[in-house]
């Protein structure tokens, strides 16, 4: 029961307070986007896991767990069949333990399925309207708007418009395509889908909303960094600016302005990467986020298990 309360409190505090912590560490995240993405993902998993484990801890008394799996299953079966031993806490907690992961899985599947269908339709039209440029390794579309994007998935392809090709210098084109290739190689669409799924599954939870925004932002910084390994940073910055200007106002949504500015600044004025100790701290935080809830949940069971079996030994 105590483990349940601890986990439930952790779930609430983490869901509200972790985004605030993330906001304070935004500059730090920009120096290590990959690690920062891992931290946001770990935070999301941590909160979902602790919610489920808290519900389980309320539903199933720890002293039962200690007596072995067979007994646990027997008690669960009793609870489900005739309601004997079913307290009101377990009546509330058990559905939560089932519904939370089910909802996350359902939303994840829905996001992936919809993206898959949209991409297939998009790719079919690209086949009719574009032409594959073997030198670029991308599909070129006759269109004045300056656009570059990638269509992830099994038949992944990169797309660039003639408007973008005319605006960008050749080395900027290769830099832009390297950025898109980084998205495809890193399977960034799955990372985005995961963040999207959690935010949709549990709307209004500050952590998931913030994680989606931050991961969307950080994934661009990460792809810039990968592209910058082989291409001059200044060219990536110039490409960003050239693609940002001269667009039709009808399309402007004003969503990514701050991110774009951050990206240009980072490319022109790179900050030192994280020191070894900072990196290890980040990795340790990932481990704690992922392992913490399970540890807390296991403490009463383990102690009860030990008590039970040591007791047996004592009798022997």
């Amino acid at each position: 029961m105590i483990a349940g309360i601890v986990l439930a409190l952790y779930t609430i505090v983490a869901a509200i307070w972790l985004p605030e912590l993330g906001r304070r560490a935004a500059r730090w995240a920009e120096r290590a986007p990959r690690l920062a993405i891992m931290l946001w993902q770990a935070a999301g998993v941590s909160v979902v896991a602790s919610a489920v484990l808290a519900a389980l801890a309320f539903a199933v008394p720890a002293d039962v767990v200690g007596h072995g799996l067979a007994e646990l299953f027997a008690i669960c079966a009793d609870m489900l069949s005739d309601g004997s031993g079913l307290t009101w806490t377990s009546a509330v907690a058990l559905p939560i333990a089932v519904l939370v992961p089910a909802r996350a899985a359902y939303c994840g599947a829905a996001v992936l399925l919809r993206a898959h269908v949209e991409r297939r339709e998009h790719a079919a039209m690209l086949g009719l309207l574009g032409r594959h440029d073997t030198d670029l390794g991308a599909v070129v579309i006759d269109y004045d708007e300056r656009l570059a994007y990638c269509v992830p998935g099994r038949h992944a392809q990169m797309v660039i418009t003639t408007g973008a090709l005319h605006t960008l210098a050749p080395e900027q084109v290769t830099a832009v395509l390297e950025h898109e290739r980084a998205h495809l190689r890193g399977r960034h669409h799955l990372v985005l889908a995961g963040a999207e799924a959690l935010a949709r599954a549990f709307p209004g939870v500050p952590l998931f909303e913030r994680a989606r925004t931050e991961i969307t932002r950080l994934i661009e910084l990460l792809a810039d960094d990968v592209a910058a390994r082989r291409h001059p940073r200044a060219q990536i910055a110039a490409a960003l600016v050239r693609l940002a200007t001269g667009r039709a106002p009808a399309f402007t949504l004003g969503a990514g302005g701050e991110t774009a500015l951050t990206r240009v600044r980072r490319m022109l004025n790179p900050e030192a990467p994280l020191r070894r100790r900072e990196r290890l701290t980040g990795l340790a935080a990932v481990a704690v986020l992922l392992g913490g809830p399970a540890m807390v949940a296991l403490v009463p069971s383990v102690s009860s298990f030990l008590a039970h079996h040591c007791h047996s030994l004592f009798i022997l």
Partner: protein
Amino acid sequence: MIRGLGELESTIMDWLWARRRPASVRDVLEGLRQERVIAYTTVMTVMDNLHTKGLLKRRPVGRAYVYETVASKEAYTAGLMRRALAGSGNQAATLVHFLEQLTPEEAAALEAALQVFPPRGRPA
């Protein structure tokens, strides 16, 4: 096989877009035969598919259909790009853009940032 048909769809659409007026299967066949060996039934099947997909409209003339593109290639391209951009906001997992949409003010701020550190090797 499917890839081959997809390529033929694209070739036929391009031919009709370039022609800018209605054409029968026979017209298309003769137009394409200058470049490749192809069967009448193949062209007919593909054009029928394109009609089913809503890319071609047709009306009967004599014993055959005369086909015409529903909209220009430019109109289709504009529609596709607009959908690609519209989807980027709420469905980031579908397409990953190089750059999100910016307001003119934000674009100007980017340009200003670049002025401070002009890229080397190329006049800004």
